[in-house]
């Protein structure tokens, strides 16, 4: 996430010309039929449009930033949308306390490079002072909702950018780009505003806020192709590496202080070559066996995969048929 890499080094976007030569060249090059955009250009342009709409319509937007690939792509798009001005909003991270150290390090590096402000809401603080209780299964993902909503209230954020994509899950396939949440942060799928053309309605009453999803129409593969094209840096755990893992619920989880492995349940640690497709809480994010060490290798691997991103790596979505829908209703993304 280096601020202006695309401005100087990405030769595919056209060479630098002066305004005067560009003008004379363009007058004769006004095409009768303008070229269509590539699918990545179309998705990028649409996401930028969404960022600009939200930044213009809301008083206090914030971008949810975990250091994972989707939020990194969002920050990259935001920087492009407002270039050469600065990104006109800050970042918010809900830290479960079980995050991967490599990701937290990357988060801080990216924040420093982008010169934006970062707020962190910590699940651990809520557990320490008794506002939240640790779940029996040790999974902390569902616990994020309370600190998230508290942070939204405390900072009076009226728009919250999230990296949610409609291809992730069937409840998300129903999600709007501008998604109204009530004063409890709840999503009601039956009361969504219809969204037509590119007209996004961000009006809301005091206490309500809007979740904004610029990557709605990206798929996992689009995100990776975009990362490749834009040469966006990522945390190391997205690439194959050797790691101590153990098997639980059909997934490879990272061994660590957060609560695994449990010797009495015959969970044994082994060292494998793995990588992560999503980056979330260590307690519910599984690694996949992989030898993909570069972005093109990852793209090839995903294109051939028979599992969805979440099916392969997220334990919390497997709790029930409607797990995601239920969590969204409560105020999760």
């Amino acid at each position: 996430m280096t601020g202006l890499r695309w401005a100087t080094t990405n030769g595919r976007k056209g060479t630098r010309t002066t305004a005067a030569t560009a003008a004379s060249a363009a007058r004769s090059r006004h095409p009768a039929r303008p070229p269509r955009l590539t699918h990545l250009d179309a998705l990028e342009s649409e996401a930028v449009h969404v960022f600009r709409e939200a930044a213009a319509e809301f008083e206090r937007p914030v971008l949810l930033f975990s250091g994972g690939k989707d939020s990194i792509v969002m920050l990259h798009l935001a920087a492009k949308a407002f270039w050469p001005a600065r990104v006109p909003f800050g970042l918010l991270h809900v830290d479960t306390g079980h995050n991967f150290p490599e990701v937290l390090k990357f988060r801080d590096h990216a924040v420093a490079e982008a010169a934006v402000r970062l707020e962190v809401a910590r699940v651990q603080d809520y557990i320490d002072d008794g506002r939240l209780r640790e779940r029996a299964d040790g999974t902390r993902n569902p616990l994020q909702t309370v600190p998230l909503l508290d942070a939204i209230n405390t900072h009076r954020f009226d728009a919250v950018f999230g990296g949610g994509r409609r291809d992730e899950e069937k409840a998300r396939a129903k999600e709007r780009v501008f998604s109204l949440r009530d004063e409890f942060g709840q999503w009601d799928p039956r009361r969504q505003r219809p969204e037509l053309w590119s007209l996004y309605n961000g009006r809301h009453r005091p206490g309500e806020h809007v979740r904004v999803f610029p990557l709605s129409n990206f798929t996992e593969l689009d995100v990776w192709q975009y990362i490749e094209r834009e040469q966006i840096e990522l945390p190391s755990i997205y690439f194959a590496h050797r790691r101590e893992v153990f098997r639980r619920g059909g997934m490879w989880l990272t061994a660590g202080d957060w609560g695994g492995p449990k010797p009495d349940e015959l969970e044994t640690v082994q060292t494998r070559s793995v990588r992560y497709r999503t980056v979330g809480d260590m307690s519910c994010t599984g690694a996949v066996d992989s030898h993909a060490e570069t972005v093109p290798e990852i793209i090839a691997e995903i294109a051939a995969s028979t599992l969805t991103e979440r099916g392969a790596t997220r334990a919390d979505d497997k709790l029930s048929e409607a797990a995601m829908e239920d969590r969204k209703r409560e105020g999760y993304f």
Partner: protein
Amino acid sequence: MQPTTQPGSLLRLATAGSVDDGKSTLVGRLLHDSKQVFADQLDAVERVSRERGLDGADLALLTDGLRAEREQGITIDVAYRYFATPRRRFILADTPGHVQYTRNMVTGASTAQLAVVLVDARHGVVEQTRRHAAVAALLGVPHVVLAVNKMDLADYAEEVFAPIADEFADYSRALGIREVTAIPISALRGDNVVEPSGHIDWYSGPTLLEHLETVDVDADQPGSAARMPVQYVLRPQSPDFRDYRGYAGQVTAGTFAPGDEVLVLPSGRRTSVAGIDRLGTRDVSLAHAGQSVTLRLTDDVDVARGDIIAAADQPPRVTRELSATVCHLADRPLHAGDRVLLRHGTATVKALVASLDSVLDLRTLRREPGPEALRANDIGRVHLRTASPLPLDDYAEHRRTGSFLLVDEADGTTLTAGMVGEPLGGDTVTKL
């Protein structure tokens, strides 16, 4: 699934069909046979199908995602699906078929380049089919596919298919739809959806997926006159960009090049394009429809969010009075005399519903004059007056700058979707 980055390789489409025409099955089949369904998704579908005592996997379960939908076995809201082939990527607006959800088809069709209208081969063209075709025509969807489904229940007979295809083609032509393609399919059996049918040897056309991959959408850009609604004014005031003042927005039609004469509307000030920056790249030579860019202007004119920068020789008209075809979306009805907000491009202005001129009878497709109110899912003609002037295009010419929303000022509810001007040509629609 292979990635594609060729130009023109993203197609947005919408589906429409009555409740029992098998639309969810068709979408499920399209995803499944084009290998977009992953093992974990299919496992879930097979498990639920078994729990329900079905023999095989019910592909409709792939798309009906919400609890209420699974409980009732219907689709209650627009969902977006993604699939890809080596030739193209697709964004599919999966819209429900119930009569009471006309607004959802309008929503799906608003961004679609192609609509798939599904009919049951045993029932042929029914009211709902005509309604779907009318909505596609009103929304200016350039390509329509008639998928004649359940051919397996009609002995795969050409004698069943041909009259349905002919009737629909005649009707669509009267509506002014530019291109209609009819394809005999069985979504349940997989005939002609992705794989060619082994039962329909009299049909030599493409499968549905082949058609979606190859339909020519390059000629679909009417409104070559340049337009860009201003979203955001960029003034970095940093040492490197002390005097920089750029107008950020997405070009909705045509092209801009440095040196082009433009008007800033609604004020009408004339200036020209000094330079174009695109997402971090300085001084590009051209900005064309669909691109998010930043325009710099030669004169220090007053330009703000809500303005439209337009080609000086073909500007939109600037007016405070407009007639429009609308689809009412909210449960709360719309009455003459209502004061609302009107959202057009990046502008939001106060507006008055001056009169409700007519409502479309969705059964007969006739205009009934003087309705007392427009209710949810009604399509009607209205006259509006705005508090400040707006630069308006006709929807038939410019989809983006010819469309608007009406919004409730008190709680922000999206009330009504509107299209400026007379509906698209053709005898039947002119009667709407």
